[in-house]
Structures are given as structure tokens and as C-alpha cells.
């Protein structure tokens, strides 16, 4: 856990002593997180050898060059929510962008913002809303880094309208060799930030995928991201007090519908019909566990309500309508939705019901995620089952029913996952129903046994997906060796690119694909 001789001094000289720290009191703050019992418990985790705080792209270049010179590795991070940000080897430093926290520009006309890596969604959206714009906020929470999330999934509540993982425009990207690669319109020094595709070979393709390179190919130091029209109030409309905030959007422009269908198949049909009719801004199957956790001010509250709520809240589709053009749009879309709901035998959850009271903040959650970390409240640890693919709505449904839930039930029988017989996922529509993705939610205790059960189920779902020729997405790090051979050996291409761009393996060495298959 220490750097090669001279390296620390070199970093200090470059950044100033106050911006480099190797004291365990500080580095331990970067060595632990959720899921670690289940993942790093096996593979080992390390305190970083140091944490550095660059203040600029130039600083990052310097750090990267020092890492190459002295042969140690680094992990660029956003807000460190993801396990790949915890060092899995010694001699690794963390590049923490806390000093790079500025919104450099919001172009109202052309709908983009230029941000540094420690700008969060909540911050950016708050500024965007002032000028009639918004951004789709990751369900990971509005407190995560816009830059990190866009390179990972960039998937949020309003993805039905605004799209999935397509938010990146111009970027400044410090490559593992320390050079700056200008992505998109940044490649033309006269152009600015507005566009993401490069002139020439479109290297933006290396910047994002379903889960990005996880810091394995250098660090993006500035990114322009897409903003979208937003017809609502200039500040996020919240009322009430902690922990019972309620959102309060003007109903003529923002309308939440919670619709209960007789079965999941009907719900799926409704999603298709909504997509074909090109209505709505957010469309999600909202599983009971997610809704109740979101409404739970305490774990006790959740468990008191859960047995009954689980029975009541089934096959519920949440549909948020937004009047981008005017209230007329909401009126029209509601009419279409009413027709679809009627055809499929759905029933609106009434606004005077207890169910509505529990679910109504869903509209706030779609626009600015503020509840999702309550998922961890339910049992201590939480994640979604692996082996899900991003494909069609039908596909999401099939994967969930055919093998995901059976595997989840195994974990439930062992008592490691919370009981849940709804078979409802967080199943989402993106880009007006063109894509979908499903996340069966797993709640388990944060201990080794439960973690092991979780990881086993997780891996099994990946294997099942591959065996059944249903594509799996999201294999992180070593898991690529499981998926790769079943998927045109993509992992080898990725690995070759990693080796070429990061020959000394300084940039988060085990990502996107580690050099060796797992032992």
C-alpha cells in the first residue's frame, strides 16, 4: 500500500502537498463500500496508496504521466459508488475530482451543459431547471457524478422520453499515456462542446457502452452532456420535512399515473402500446419493494407494511406524462393512456387511496432521483440480479420470468434475500419503448453469507442468460471472461485495446477487462 520511491514526492511537487495524501486516516475513506462483502471479500481490497486531488485537466495529465514514470496505477472516480473504484491491488492511487466541481457552461439554446467530474446530477439539474432544461438523472441517485454516470449507464427515470446512455457530447479525455483526447466537437478547436461524435474514427465508442471502461482507459476531465426541454417550475417543487418530503409538480403539465394490471403480461402489452403511441415521459414497472422502500422513513416502517403491501401492489405500471408543448399534450396523452388502460383491463390507483399515498412520489423520483438509496434501507445491502440484458420489453419480461425469479427464490429459501413473491421487476422502457431493461431487485443482509448467496445467484443468472442465448449485459471486470467466449469473444478485442492504450496497465488495471481470467 505504498508507492514506489520518489512517486509521492513527484505528486506533491506537481499538485501541492495539500492535494496528495497517503495517510491511512484519509485513504481508508476510499477502501470500503456496499457489496464489498460479496465481491472484494473474495478478491481482496486495498486501501489506496494515496489519494490525489487534481484541480484541472493539466493536473490529471501530470498525475497520469507520473504514474507511467514511476509505474503505479490509479483509479479515476466520480463519487465512488461503484465497487471498481476500490483498489483491488496495492500501489494504486485514487484520483478524486473533488476540486473539479464546476459547471463550466449551460447552453440554453443548444441544450447542453459542460461539467467537471465532481458535479452531481442534482446540482446540474438545479441549474438547468432555472433555464427551462433538465437532464435524466440516474436512478443511482441525484448525488452521483454526471460524468461518471454517463460513462457507466446514464440511465434514468425519464429515459422513456430522453433516451438511455446517450448523453455524452464533447469531452476532454486524458488517455493512459497522458495525452488529451478531444471527443466530438472538441476535436475542432473552434467548435466547442455541442456534439459528441468525432470527426474521423468515432472514438466516443470507447467511452461508453453498457458499463463503460470503469476508469480503465484514463480519465475524462470535462464532459458536455445533453440537456432536455423542461416545462416545469424553476426549482424542484418539494414540500414537507425530512424524512417525509413530498413533491408537488403542477398537475396540468406533470401527471403521474399508477396503473394496476390484472397480470404482468397485460402490463407488458401496455408498455408496448404506450411506446407505439409515442406518449409519456417515464414508463416503468414499479415493483412493490422499490415503491415501499422509497416511501419508508425507516426500516421498521418498511417491515411493518411489507407483508400487506406486497399483496396489494402488483403489476403496477407507473406512467408520467409531461406537457412539453403545453397542457394540451397532457390532455391528449391522458386520453390515449385511458384507452390503452381500458383495453387491457388496467385500473388506475385512486388518488385518495393509501396505495397512491405510498406511490405518489414516483413522479419526483423520475425527474430527480432522491429515494433510490432507500433501497439499502430494506435489508442492509442491495443490488440487482446480474445477467439481465438491454433489449426489448418482451425480452426483459422473458428473462425475468424464465430464470431470474427462480434463482431469486433460491436465495429467499435460504433466508438471505427478503421474501418477495410478486415477481415484479423494475422493468423500464427507454426511448419510447424501443429498448428496455429489467432489474429484479434483491435485498440481502450485508454479511458474508448473504453476500455469497447473492453473488452465486448473480453469476448463475449470467450463465443462464448465456446458456439460453439471451444476452447478458454489465459483466464487470473478471466477469467478462465468463461472457466473452459466448459473445463473439468481445473481451479479447477489449483487452487488446486496453493493452494498446494502456500498455503499462496504470489506469484501473483490472478494467474494463483484467489481463488474466479469474483464478
Amino acid at each position, binding site marked *: 500500500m505504498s508507492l514506489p520511491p520518489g512517486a509521492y514526492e513527484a505528486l506533491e511537487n506537481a499538485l501541492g502537498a495539500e492535494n496528495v495524501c497517503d495517510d491511512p486516516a484519509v485513504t481508508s475513506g476510499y477502501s470500503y463500500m456496499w457489496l464489498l462483502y460479496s465481491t472484494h471479500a473474495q478478491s481482496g481490497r486495498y486501501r489506496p496508496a494515496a489519494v490525489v486531488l487534481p484541480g484541472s485537466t493539466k493536473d490529471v495529465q501530470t498525475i497520469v504521466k507520473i504514474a507511467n514514470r514511476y509505474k503505479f496505477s490509479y483509479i479515476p472516480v466520480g463519487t465512488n459508488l461503484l465497487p471498481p473504484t476500490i483498489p483491488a491491488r496495492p500501489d494504486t492511487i485514487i484520483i478524486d475530482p473533488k476540486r473539479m466541481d464546476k459547471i463550466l457552461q449551460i447552453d440554453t439554446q443548444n441544450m447542453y451543459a459542460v461539467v467537471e467530474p465532481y458535479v452531481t446530477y442534482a446540482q446540474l439539474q438545479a441549474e438547468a431547471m432555472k433555464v427551462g432544461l433538465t437532464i435524466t438523472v440516474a436512478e443511482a441517485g441525484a448525488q452521483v457524478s454526471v460524468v461518471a454516470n454517463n460513462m457507466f449507464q446514464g440511465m434514468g427515470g425519464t429515459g422513456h422520453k430522453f433516451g438511455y446512455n446517450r448523453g455524452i457530447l464533447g469531452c476532454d479525455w486524458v488517455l493512459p499515456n497522458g495525452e488529451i483526447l478531444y471527443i466530438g466537437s472538441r476535436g475542432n478547436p473552434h467548435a466547442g462542446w455541442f456534439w459528441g461524435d468525432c470527426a474521423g474514427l*468515432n*472514438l466516443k*465508442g*470507447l467511452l461508453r457502452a*453498457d458499463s463503460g*471502461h470503469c476508469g480503465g482507459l484514463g480519465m475524462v476531465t470535462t464532459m458536455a452532456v445533453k440537456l432536455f*426541454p423542461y416545462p416545469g417550475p424553476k426549482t424542484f417543487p418539494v414540500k414537507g420535512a425530512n424524512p417525509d418530503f413530498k413533491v408537488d409538480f403542477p398537475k396540468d403539465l406533470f401527471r403521474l399515473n399508477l396503473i394496476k394490471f390484472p397480470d404482468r403480461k397485460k402490463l407488458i402489452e401496455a408498455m408496448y402500446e404506450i411506446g*407505439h403511441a409515442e406518449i409519456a415521459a417515464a414508463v416503468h414497472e414499479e415493483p412493490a419493494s422499490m415503491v415501499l422502500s422509497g416511501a419508508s422513513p425507516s426500516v421498521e416502517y418498511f417491515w411493518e407494511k411489507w407483508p400487506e403491501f406486497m399483496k396489494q401492489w402488483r403489476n403496477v405500471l407507473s406512467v408520467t406524462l409531461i406537457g412539453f*408543448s403545453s397542457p394540451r399534450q397532457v390532455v391528449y396523452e391522458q386520453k390515449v393512456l385511458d384507452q390503452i388502460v381500458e383495453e387491457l383491463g388496467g385500473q388506475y390507483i385512486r388518488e385518495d387511496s393509501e396505495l397512491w399515498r405510498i406511490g405518489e412520489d414516483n413522479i419526483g423520483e423520475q425527474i430527480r432521483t432522491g429515494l433510490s438509496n432507500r433501497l439499502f434501507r430494506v435489508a442492509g445491502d442491495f443490488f440487482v440480479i446480474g445477467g439481465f440484458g438491454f433489449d426489448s420489453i418482451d425480452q426483459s419480461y422473458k428473462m425475468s420470468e424464465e430464470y431470474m425469479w427462480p434463482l431469486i427464490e433460491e436465495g429467499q429459501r435460504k433466508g438471505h434475500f427478503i421474501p418477495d413473491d410478486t415477481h415484479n421487476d423494475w422493468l423500464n422502457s427507454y426511448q419510447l419503448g424501443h429498448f428496455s431493461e429489467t432489474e429484479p431487485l434483491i435485498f440481502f443482509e450485508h454479511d458474508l453469507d448473504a453476500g455469497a448467496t447473492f453473488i452465486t445467484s448473480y453469476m448463475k443468472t449470467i450463465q443462464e442468460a448465456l446458456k439460453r442465448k439471451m444476452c447478458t449485459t454489465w459483466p464487470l471486470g473478471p466477469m467478462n471472461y465468463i461472457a466473452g467466449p459466448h459473445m463473439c469473444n468481445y473481451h479479447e*478485442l477489449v483487452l487488446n485495446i486496453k493493452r494498446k492504450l494502456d500498455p503499462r496497465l496504470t489506469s484501473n488495471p483490472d478494467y474494463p477487462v483484467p489481463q488474466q481470467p479469474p483464478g
Partner: protein
Amino acid sequence: MTEKVLAKVDYLKPLPDMPYDVVMAGRREYHERVRTSLADIVGNDRITDDQQVLERYSHDKSFEPAGRPSFVVYPENVEQICRIVKKANELLLPVVPASSGTHCYGAAIPRMGGVVIDLSAWKTIYKIDHRNRATRIQPGVTYDELQRALESHGLRALFPLLPRKDQSVVTSHLEAQPKLIPEFNYSEPIYTAEIVLPSGDLFRTGTAAVAPPEANKTDLIGPWGPGFDWNRLYTRAQGTLGIVTWLNIMAEPLPTREKLFFTPCNSIDQAAHFTYRLGKKWIGYECFTLNRAALAMMLAEHGPDEYRTIKENAPAYLQIFCIAGLKRFPDERIAYQEADFFETARECNVSPSVQVPHIPRAASFFATHLRQCWDRDVYWKDMYKGASAEIFFITTMDRAAAHIAALQQEAIRFGYDPSDIGVYLQPIENGRAAHLEFIIPYDPGNAYEVRRVKDLWINASEAMYRLGAVFTRAYGYWADMVNRCNAVQYATARQIKEILDPNNIMNPGKLGL
């Protein structure tokens, strides 16, 4: 040849002193070796080195230098392509894929010779998936063919502006030709793809990776990964990274009713302002702006005189906007969008109408041509003078005026009448960006004019670049222009190319690679 040193010529080393006939014999021998190798794969009747045929592939409509292939092959299936590519690696033979009938920007000109793989006869529409609004097609499928097939399923293809009859839909998507509908989610319309890698191995992107379509249990919809965003990397790669053998692309619901509106504008800024506002309201489908020259090129059926009359009568700029209804309550959909459209128009001080003043034919032309290929022999861009040069790039609408002014200045500098330059402004993603296109007609028979327009084209391209134009489709000269100013991008692109195509056989020279 054991050492793979293609394209790395040591200019300092004296050439081996070899008699001319020996060199020629060697070449002939190589040529024959290539022929037999390829014929072994595709059969004798699917390979040609007929000079007339080769000639057709050796140049195109652009100013790019010619380059003659040694062979053209017409493979029957993917397996043959894989074998050809593998063989090409052995023979260090450049491979240039071609799918469209007409080429415009030099991307399919075999700069360094080699073999052209012509896929224009690959016309299978494998699947029309109404439920998922997708269609999987081979590279030879054209827009008219696709649209005809989709319509019976209640779907529409995402059309660029008046594509050529022989334009490949696959190429159009791969080259990211701008689509007429600026709605956000249509700007990346590729779901999954099958690609023959430069190694000759078969690769599929997104959820298609897990198995070939026949065995694949997904709907081949998921575009992500695996690993990297290959769809993005391969978009606009001009065949330098492999050969796409099918694409699964978006199709959209076919409108049940449509209403077109024409808004005369006296400046591009006015049109841009209106378009921005509409984009934020997120209404409508097709939306684009033409200047009077471009409009006249499209509408004149009877030659230059008519062109001039229309041009005189046309507004400086015309914004074309389409509102449509789908399956459910179509009239009400049109009604609310129309109300919002006119409200916006009033705010922007413009007056849309269902007719173009003084040009009665315009309305019916656009009513039929938004989902159609150009149906006459001479392409609209060429109708005025027989040929045309094009400059297009990505910019923002608020910069369009500056680009146009600069281009007009360049035109004047080169003695070209700026009023004859067509302008096409296509908003992308609700207007966050725009494709701006200039069409510069010229007489191909007039050598002086050709030279002048070529000079204008180069100088104007540079001027646009200096104003911040993003030449995402970096064809020919433009590739050198953008690479010149972006060394790290260029170096990194070369590294990627080296990994995927170590022998540099895939369309070498393109993108500066």
C-alpha cells in the same frame, strides 16, 4: 511476402534495380494469385476484373482522386466474405466494401487498389418486427424497397432527405446521414449489427453478440456493447474497421394522417429561432429548412429556366414541418400539436401555411416525397448544372448564419454566384445540433468551372472548419483537414485501427488511416 510492412515505404532506400518486365511479371503473377484465391471462394462468375466494371468503381461524384480496384467480387454469403477477408490478410490485399449504387464522397473509391466487395445485390429484409419497431436488413436494401415492405406492417423507415434510388439504407445508417425527423431518439437508429472484422472473424454488436440471429433468443434490440460501444465506433468508419453484413435498425409507426406546414422565413436566423422553439416543445415529425436555391433544385422539373423562376418566387428560406397522427386519436394528436405549433409561430413572428406562396406545386411535392427516394434520373442536386459539390457538417443552428455568410464570401472570391448555392439545414435531436449542407452545382463539362468549384470547395471547407464545423463524416480531403488539427485523435484512431486491422487491409487510406 513474409514481412507485413504494407504502406510503409522507405523512400530513402533506393528501389531494387529490377527490370521492368520482371516487375510486371511479378504483378501479373500476384494478380492471378489473387484471382484464383478469390474465385476459389466465390466462384468464377462472381469475380470480375473487367476494365469497364473496374472503371465504374474507380471514381465517384466527389473531387476525390480516383483509384482503380483490381477486382470486384459479389459474394453470396457472409461466410464467403469472412474467407475473402482472411485471404486478403494473407495477400495483403486492400478490401473495400460497397453497398450503394452511386457513391458520392469518395469513401468507396479503392485508393490503394485491391478488391471491392459489392453487396448491392444483398437485398434481404430478414425481419420486420412491428412490435419492437425494428427491421433487420442486408446492405443492398434501398429506401424504396424497405419503405414498401414496412408500410404493409404499419411502419416507416427513417428517411434522409430525398435519398437516391440506389442508396443503401445500411450505408445511410452507418454513415449517419441525417434523418428528416429531428426527434431525439431517432438520431442513433442502429440496434445491432453483424460485422466481418478485418481479421475475417465474425462479430455482432449488442445483444446480437450472444448468438447468430437464428439461434439468438433476444430481439436483437439491445445496442450496447458488448464491452465497448461498437455501433458508435463503426458508425462513419467508412469500412475501415470491417464489413457490415446486416443491420437491425429502428422503424417507426406509420402515420395515419399527416399535415404539412410551410413557413417562409426571410433569414436563416428566423428559421433557426422558430425551429429551436419547436424543438423545445417536442412536437412534430419531419422538420428542416431549405433556401430558395435548394428548393428550386428539388421542384424544377424542366431545367434551368424553371429553376430560376422558382428561385425568384421562393422565400429566402422555407421551413418544412410535418405533424402527424398515429393509430390512437390521430386527429386529436394533430389538433393539439397544431395549436402549439401556431402558438409558437405567433411568438416567433412567422406565418406558416399549408401552401408555399407562389409555388403551388411545393405542397404536393413534399406531401409525396418525405418517404420516397428521388424518382427522376438526374438527382436533384445535379439538375441545375449536371453535377454538384457538397459541403456538410454538424454545427448548431445559431451558427448557421455565420457559416452561410462565410461560404457566400468564399463563393464570391472564387467568382461563383452565391445565390446558386443550395442550403439545407437539418436540425438534429430537437435542434440541439444541426446538419448544415451546402450544394454547389457545377457543369462537369466545363473544365474551368470544375477547377474553380473544386478550389471553392476546398477553401470553403477550410473556412467552415475554422468557424467550428464538425466534419463527423470525414470523407477524403476532410479527413486530412480534421486529422491535421487533432493529433491525439488521429494517433489514437491509428492505434485502434492497428489493433483491429494490423495489416491495414480494410479500405486503407480512408479517414487518413
